[in-house]
Each structure stands twice: as structure tokens, then as C-alpha cells.
């Protein structure tokens, strides 16, 4: 009958018949029954689903792992810094940090004892206080080693817990501390590449690739550390550069520090002597003044300079440290490193010319290699004629070691300007310099560059740099020794001894610069602490090691003089063995 139809109220109302409450209830009963049946069915299906369908592939441990993985938002790990071969200089690892929830700690006394045994640097009494406090979260120790973590887990204390935290790791330790830099505990870059590339690194994308080669870095540091130790020096700076493209292959500043713990190092150790420290380089600057003479005056090798008497100009006297006291030819001035001769050269070049030449070489402005620790050179202002004379032999002008090696690379390389490069990175200053190196900006003529190579080779074969020679690699170079400025003018007992080596000289490929700060003479150097005795042997050792590592072809040396310098020797008058010179 229509009026009993459970599905149509319409019918019921249309029929107009009154139904008793009982009938209405009876009519609704199937709905209720169906509803409950359906509900039970759903529950049954869900149980079946959870136990049979999903039970197979979700085991409890995995489910909890999933839960934690979902709840914990993965922090972006700071990107690597790598060397040119992809060797890690800095990386970030997740480490466990230990904290405690004092409310859950069952027995604070025994737990404090156990923790004090695991972490000897933590005080047991402090720990006990921490574990008895009313807070729900106290740090115990951060960045644990896996071993420490295992031992804490063995305590089996429910109130101790770990939180995963990123930690910056420097696998090379001290080796590239000044260039790579360091971060604070929260991973913000505070120095070096870590600081200047902070944004790139913290985005966590591609690693920042440097031009450094960790192996060369090691050779350089090893030899510098030996020189610093042997000559009881206070520090040093060293660089290895690819002459052809300005890539910095190694850069070391001593003393250095552990980038994991920069806080314990003193300021002197953290000071970057490569790009931040400015120094008077002394006779190494004769490379630049001699090149200027050849470039502007097309000087001949037979040109003579009177070095018999100290040079007096405008109240200043310029004298030679180890005076020849005779008239010197141009190659002799260079190989015996005569200050008088170089000053006369500068005078002949002229003040304007020399100043502009130095500026073109990049000696007046700090180069941008992508590191913010960058020292501005100290250039005389105003530049008077006397400054031209002193700057010819490297006094009265202070520049960074990086500027020296780049300027020297410019002169002995192809003669086009070399911009130092530290970072292979499309977005950064590095690429800017890479592009600039590709664009030729000629500073000296190829003939001048060739003459300078001959002169540098002469210094090593017959002059002050003989300690840097490595048979077969055609090393050329220039010594430099500069007195440091003390409270009363130049201090004769505190000096910077340096050597700039280039090899192979017939077509220069690599330049090596080592500057040693305040060396003291020892027995092996007969008491001398000049560039030729302190830095030259170190440069020679670096060249020997890197030549073999990089497979630089060995040039067989025949009897007689090196063919590069043969044409110069007729202008050289050798009387005695020169042991010391500036």
C-alpha cells in the first residue's frame, strides 16, 4: 500500500491518512537498521583494510619512521665548498645533539654520572643541576660523534633525547682555513668563501668550486711551515698561480687555525696575509720597474748604471745592501738586485710613466676574487719623484701578496693583464675575472715579456735566487727582502724575506710566491735571513713537488749555460759568489 511506502513521504501526505506514531516508528526502523548495518560494515571493512591489506607492507617501525620523517621539516643543508678536483674543503653533516627532558629523567644522579663519563669536559655537578631543573628542555651537548651517541643510547635513559643538527665539517682541517673561512654554530658564514658566498651556500644547491688544488695547497703549506719553523719566523704568506689564466692554485697564510674552532685561535692566526695583509715587497718590485724600463725606453741589455756611490736625491740616500761598488749593466742590476741601479731605472722611466705602469699592473687597487677580506694597497699620495725611486725597488708602496703574483704573472706570461681567479662560478666575481682574462689587455710587449723571462732565469742560474733552482724545470725568479717599518723608521732586524719563482721559464706556466715574516738567520743560511736564503729554497721545493705532481715536462739541461740566459751572460761580469742580496 502506498501509505506504507517507506520511501515516499509525499505519498503519505498525499493520501491524507493519519498514521499512528507506532506505524511511523515501524516505518523508520529499516532506516535505522540499515544505517547501523552500514556502519558496522564500514568498521569491518576498515579493520580488514588495516590488518590484511595494509598490514602486509607497513610494519610498525617503518610507520613510526614515516611519522617522524613527515613531522620533521628537513632543513636545507649548506652546500659544499670543493677544490678544483672536487675534493671537499667544507661540507655539512647531520649530527646528533643531546638534550634532556628533566621531567622524564628517572634518576638524575646516576644519569649525571654516566654522562660525565661520556663527556669528560662536562661537569657532573652542573649536569645534576640541569637534570633536576623544572624546565622541559635542556641542552646537554651539541654535535656528538656517532660513538658518543651510541654510548648515550647505552645509558637507556628515557629523558635523554637527540635532535639532528647540521654541522660544518672541514675535512682538510687547517689547509685552506683562510680561503675557505668558517661559520658560526648556526651555519652563518663569518670569513672567507663561507662569508662572501653565504647566500649561495645556504641555498644548498650546487657546491662552490674553487680554483685551489688541495695537493698543491699542502705542498705550499708544508714548505712554508718548514721555513717558518727553521728560521723562527712569525708567519708567512704564499701563493701558487697559473700564469696563463690567473687561477689561484694554492694560497696559504701562516700561522693558521682550525676552522672547526676559530674561537680559540688568536687574531694573528685568523689574519689573512694573502689578500688582507699589505706588505712592502722589496726587490720583487724590480721585476716591475725593469719591465717598465724595457717597455718605455726599449733599453738594451748593455745599458749601464753607476752603482759606485749611494744615490742622493732630495735629502734621501739610496744605498745597496751588498754593494758591488762599480758600474753595472742592466742584467747585473737585476741579478745582484742593486737598489741604486733600480732607482736609476725608475728615474729614467719617469714618474708619470712608472706610476701609470704600476696602476695598469693592478698594484693600486685590491683585486676582487670573491673574498671580502681584501686589503687596500698603501700607495704614496701625492706621488713625488722620490717615490718613483723607492717604488722602483719596492719601498714606500705596500701591496698584498696576491697583487704581487698577479702583476708578475702579467709580465712574465704573455704580457697581457692577468686577473686572479679563485672561484669557478657563473654567478660570482670569479666568472667576471675569467671573462676578463679571456679579453686581452696588453700591458707589456711580447719582447719585453721575453726579456723579463731571461732576466728572471738569470737570477736563478747566476744571481741571488740560486737556491730555488730545480734541475729540469727551468726555474726563474726574483728575491726580495724588505725591512719592516718599526717605531723609528725601517727596522733592520725585522724584515720580510720573499721569493717569486716562475717555471718553466721558456714558456711560463706556474708562479710561486712565498713571503716569510721576520725570519732569523740560522746555521744553514750562515746567519742570513734574506729572501735568497729563506724563501728561495722553499719555493724550489714547492716547484719540485708540484712539477712532478702535475707532470710538467722535464727539460734536459746540457753542458754550459742555459740557452735562455746565454745571450745575457756577455753583459755579466762575475767576480765572486754572491750569497746575499736584496
Amino acid at each position: 500500500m502506498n501509505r506504507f511506502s517507506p520511501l515516499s513521504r509525499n505519498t503519505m501526505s498525499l493520501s491524507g491518512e493519519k498514521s499512528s506514531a507506532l506505524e511511523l516508528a515501524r516505518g523508520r526502523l529499516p532506516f535505522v537498521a540499515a544505517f547501523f548495518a552500514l556502519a558496522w560494515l564500514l568498521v569491518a571493512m576498515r579493520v580488514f583494510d588495516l590488518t590484511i591489506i595494509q598490514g602486509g607492507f607497513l610494519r610498525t617501525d617503518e610507520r613510526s619512521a614515516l611519522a617522524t620523517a613527515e613531522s620533521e621539516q628537513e632543513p636545507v643543508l649548506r652546500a659544499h665548498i670543493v677544490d678544483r678536483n672536487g675534493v671537499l674543503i667544507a661540507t655539512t653533516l647531520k649530527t646528533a645533539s643531546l638534550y634532556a627532558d628533566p621531567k622524564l629523567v628517572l634518576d638524575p644522579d646516576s644519569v649525571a654520572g654516566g654522562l660525565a663519563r661520556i663527556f669528560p669536559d662536562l661537569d657532573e655537578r652542573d649536569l645534576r643541576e640541569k637534570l633536576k631543573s623544572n624546565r622541559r628542555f635542556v641542552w646537554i651537548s651539541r654535535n656528538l660523534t656517532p660513538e658518543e651517541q651510541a654510548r648515550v643510547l647505552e645509558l637507556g635513559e628515557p629523558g635523554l633525547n637527540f635532535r639532528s643538527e647540521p654541522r660544518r665539517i672541514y675535512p682538510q682541517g687547517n689547509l685552506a682555513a683562510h680561503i675557505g673561512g668558517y661559520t658560526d654554530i648556526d651555519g652563518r658564514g663569518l670569513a672567507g668563501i663561507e662569508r662572501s658566498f653565504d647566500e649561495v651556500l645556504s641555498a644548498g644547491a650546487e657546491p662552490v668550486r674553487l680554483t685551489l688544488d688541495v695537493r698543491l695547497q699542502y705542498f705550499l703549506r708544508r714548505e712554508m711551515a718548514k721555513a717558518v719553523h727553521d728560521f723562527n719566523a712569525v708567519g708567512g704568506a704564499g701563493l701558487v698561480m697559473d700564469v696563463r689564466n690567473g687561477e689561484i692554485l694554492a694560497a696559504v697564510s701562516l700561522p693558521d687555525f682550525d676552522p672547526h674552532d676559530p674561537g680559540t685561535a688568536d687574531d694573528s692566526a685568523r689574519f689573512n696575509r694573502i689578500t688582507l695583509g699589505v706588505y712592502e715587497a722589496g726587490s720583487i718590485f724590480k721585476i716591475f720597474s725593469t719591465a717598465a724600463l724595457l717597455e718605455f725606453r726599449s733599453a738594451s741589455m748593455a745599458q749601464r748604471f753607476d752603482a759606485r756611490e749611494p744615490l742622493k736625491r732630495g735629502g734621501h740616500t739610496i744605498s745597496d745592501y751588498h754593494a758591488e761598488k762599480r758600474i753595472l749593466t742592466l742584467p747585473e742590476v737585476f741579478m745582484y738586485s742593486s737598489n741604486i741601479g733600480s732607482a736609476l731605472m725608475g728615474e729614467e722611466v719617469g714618474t708619470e710613466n712608472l706610476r701609470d705602469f704600476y696602476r695598469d699592473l693592478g698594484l693600486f687597487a685590491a683585486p676582487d676574487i670573491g673574498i671580502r677580506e681584501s686589503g687596500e694597497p698603501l700607495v704614496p699620495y701625492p706621488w713625488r719623484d722620490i717615490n718613483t725611486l723607492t717604488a722602483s725597488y719596492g719601498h714606500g708602496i705596500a701591496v698584498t701578496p696576491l697583487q704581487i703574483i698577479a702583476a708578475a704573472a702579467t709580465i712574465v706570461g704573455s704580457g697581457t693583464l692577468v686577473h686572479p681567479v679563485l672561484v669557478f662560478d657563473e654567478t660570482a666575481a670569479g666568472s667576471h675575472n675569467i671573462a676578463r682574462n679571456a679579453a686581452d689587455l696588453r700591458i707589456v710587449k711580447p719582447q719585453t715579456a721575453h726579456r723579463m723571462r731571461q732576466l728572471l732565469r738569470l737570477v736563478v742560474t747566476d744571481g741571488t735566487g740560486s737556491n730555488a733552482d730545480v734541475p729540469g724545470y727551468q726555474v726563474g725568479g726574483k728575491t726580495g727582502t724588505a725591512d719592516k717599518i718599526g717605531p723609528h723608521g725601517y727596522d733592520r732586524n725585522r724584515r720580510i724575506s720573499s721569493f717569486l719563482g716562475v717555471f718553466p721559464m721558456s714558456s711560463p706556466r706556474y708562479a710561486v710566491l712565498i713571503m716569510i715574516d721576520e725570519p732569523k738567520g740560522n746555521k744553514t743560511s750562515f746567519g742570513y735571513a734574506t729572501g735568497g736564503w729563506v724563501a728561495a729554497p722553499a719555493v724550489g721545493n714547492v716547484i719540485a713537488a708540484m712539477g712532478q705532481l702535475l707532470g710538467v715536462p722535464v727539460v734536459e739541461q746540457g753542458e754550459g749555460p742555459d740557452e735562455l740566459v746565454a745571450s745575457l751572460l756577455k753583459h755579466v761580469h762575475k767576480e765572486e759568489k754572491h750569497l746575499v742580496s736584496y
Partner: protein
Amino acid sequence: MRRRIVKLSTVVSFSLAIASGGLLYLISQRVHEAESVLSRLEGQLDREEEAIRVLHAEWDYLNHPARLEQLARQYLEMEAPETNRILAGVTDLPEPFIPALPPQKPAYRPVIEIRSVSAQRRAEPSAPIASPFPPPTVSGASSHDDQFNALLQNLGSHGEGG
């Protein structure tokens, strides 16, 4: 005429709804399953990546030049050569030593069986003492070729098998 209580279309739509509901449920289950597999794989990937990071760092730490140098000094009886011992190229190698006599095949010698001590004593003086060329252990190039061919065949059959 008595109207049907439930229209056919209603039944059909109800059953369709139930069927699609069931299907939906099954699909949602499968999605759920796939998601959990995905997140498990992602978790695994994360752990692998972390392990790679750690191993990479450890590798470069263990390959620190100072450590390698120290280990080489300790365990290898080798040192960096002087530059005068390095040759510029292959052409600078000295001529290899060429023996004056062409190599000869040693004559066939019968094996002497030793039966008794006395026989051994008698045999001793006649035993070969020394020959200018020691008998080769493998009979020259042909045996090398055979070995090489065998190896090739081996490899070939492996390749086909795999």
C-alpha cells in the same frame, strides 16, 4: 495500477553509486599504498644521501695529503724521484736489451726414472747440470694465444648467457 515502490533507474543509480564508491575506495587504497611506498623510498633516499655525504667527507678526510704522505713514508719504500731521473718522453727511453743469440728451443730430454738409491747415484753424473737457456715453463707464444682464445670464448659465452 500498482506503482513500483522503487524505480529501476533508482536501483541502477544506487548500484552504480555503490560500485563507484567501492572502486573509489580501492583506488584510494592503492594511492595510499603507493604514497607510503614513495615516502619509504624517499626516506631511504635521504638516508643514502646522508650516508654518501658522510662517506665523501670521510674519504677526503682520510685522503688528507699530510696523512697520505705519512702513510706512504711508513709503508712504502718509495720516494719522489729527483728530476734528473725523470725522462721528458717515451722516445728518451734507452734501447731495450736485445740478446745476441736468438732464443732456441731446448732439446727434448727423456725423463729419468729413479728406481733405487744406487740407480740414482749412477744416474747423477749424467743428469743435466746446466743449459744456457732454462727450459721455458710455457711453450712460447702459441700457448699464450690459446689461453687468450679460451678466455675470449669464456667471456663470449658469458655474454650470451647474460
